[in-house]
């Protein structure tokens, strides 16, 4: 019974990830990732 928990958690995580993808969050991440992040490099 106890060993079912990781599987449930894993499946739930995939569902959450898929929901994010369906909401177009991939594009948001991509837009951030292909722009030089001035905060990250200490200039922002």
């Amino acid at each position: 019974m106890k060993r079912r928990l990781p599987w449930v958690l894993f499946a739930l995580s995939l569902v959450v990830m898929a929901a994010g993808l369906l909401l177009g969050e991939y594009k948001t991440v991509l837009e951030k990732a292909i722009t030089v992040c001035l905060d990250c490099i200490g200039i922002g």
Partner: protein
Amino acid sequence: MGPKPKASVPRKPRDRRHWYQAAFALGLNAWIPSWLKGEIFQGGIKGVCVPALNCYSCPSAMGACPIGAMQTFFGGLRFNLSIAEKKFGLYVAGFLAAVGSAVGRMPCGWVCPFGYIQELFYKIPTPKLRLPHVMTYFRYLVLAAMVVALPLLIVDEFGYGQTWFCKWICPAGTLEAGIPLVLLKTDLRPLVGFMYYWKLGLLALFAGWFVFSQRPFCRTVCPLGAFWGLFNKGSLFRMAVDDEKCTLCDKCFKDCPVEIKIYEKANSPDCVRCLRCVSSCKFGAISYEFLGKKEVSPDLRVKTPAQSRRSAA
């Protein structure tokens, strides 16, 4: 008179992990042409999160840092602004939880280029310092405050939150992106100011610390490791210690890159699952289990009588 028989010297199991670490460091930052152009890689696959603290502003980075991406979502989540996107970061949160629930903190030990850099620095021969365990709790504060609370709660003049961890702390960003981009892009140089020198100083401090202590950033500051560590106890991949075989010799503790006594807490949130303890245990007391398959050190597997006779000869 026959040849003198060779003395039987127990061989240390080969640790191939550094090859994986090097391969992942190169693989996650494989777009080398960007270094020549002084630009960052802008391919469509860059929205894919990588299981490591690897700055997406590194010129050759192929994917997105999940910690940077998560802060972006939290910083942009504004219900009082009609133009703000109402996106919660489900994609990134789901990705982080999926990796965590599958293997826990294992990517820290095998994939993360910044973890690899720390291990390389630690090889420099100097007197070494152990970290007090209490310092390891600081990473939870960094996760809660710098990645979640401050980006959500503190807004700038435009009404948006900032990427606090990236901006004020992340030495991986300084090393992988800050230094190379300022060197490669001359138009960025006039913008260098206090923040840049702050981050450069912080990186220098960390680099010095890497030489004396084992993985100090991973253990005391890294919010990604803090998050995945929470899954160690309940992930599909699990470590196990056989109390009947364990002699408490502490060989595993001496070899552990994060200085934990695995026989006290097999799935500690500090464990990066490098599996060095599995191969260093002479008694086969430490094992790991994944998807129903249990493994101990390769040279400690049960031998057939013929193999035993050959190794004894």
